[in-house]
């Protein structure tokens, strides 16, 4: 028997971002797709509930983001009465987080969505094409006491784009 399995990220070479922005590989975090459940987070928004970020990723569909190796915990307590289902998509999707004051300006280079506070406020969730990859974008600013919130976006995309997607985002950060 080989060694115990260790989660392998799709981003095999996570070279740090250039300049003032930070890129973080969060692919290991638990991601669960939930359909038909009774969740009071509306489409296009997200909400932190304990250590789970509940994302209203599509009409009648949510993506739950939680700590690594915690599928059961993440889905516990969901009201799945009626026709509802959950699918673990931890391994299906990569997740990268882009953080920094210029995060929106960097993203503007690869994404046609209006990222202004009016159109994509903190807590917004949007399906978009980023660097020609279809992904879910979640704006989840970093708020710390006594400081102004720092812009932050999470990107969920098909795992197989891993290194390409990282490199594309990294290139967008070069100017800042």
């Amino acid at each position, binding site marked *: 028997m080989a060694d115990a399995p260790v989660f392998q990220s799709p981003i095999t070479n996570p070279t740090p971002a250039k300049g003032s922005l930070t890129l973080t590989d969060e692919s290991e975090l638990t991601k669960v797709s939930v359909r038909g459940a009774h969740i009071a987070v509306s489409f296009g928004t997200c909400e932190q509930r304990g250590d789970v970020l509940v994302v209203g990723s599509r009409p009648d569909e949510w993506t739950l983001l939680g700590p690594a190796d915690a599928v059961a915990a993440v889905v516990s307590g969901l009201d799945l009465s009626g026709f509802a289902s959950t699918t673990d998509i931890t391994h299906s999707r990569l997740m990268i987080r882009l953080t920094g004051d210029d995060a929106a300006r960097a993203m503007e280079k690869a994404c*046609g969505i209006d990222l202004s506070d009016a159109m994509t406020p903190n807590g917004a969730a949007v399906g978009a*094409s980023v660097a020609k990859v279809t992904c879910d974008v979640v704006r989840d600013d970093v708020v710390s006491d006594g400081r102004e919130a720092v812009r932050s976006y999470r990107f969920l995309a098909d795992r197989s784009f891993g290194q390409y997607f990282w490199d594309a985002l990294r290139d967008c950060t070069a100017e800042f």
Partner: protein
Amino acid sequence: MLLVPCPNCGPRSSQDLTYGGESHSRPDPKTATPEEWRTYLYLRDNPSGWLVETWYCSSGCRRWFKLERHTLTGELRDPILPGSKTGVASDEATNIQGGTK
């Protein structure tokens, strides 16, 4: 680039969506004659004017919806943007916001 009003996501650039073409109804496959079936497959109204068509919000909400668009002028019924040319007959148009199913 056309701004397509997805009923869920709001207006999106057409590049973010997949075009489904002219909306048409499917005959009963059990009873359809070759002529009826092939009319469904191949023959199109292709109007130079108002067209009910389908779109798929492939990078957004992943919902198919219908839209009424004028193929010559690019007008949409009930557009969001005032600068997008307003449909001449928007009073009789179905509301695109409710056009999904």
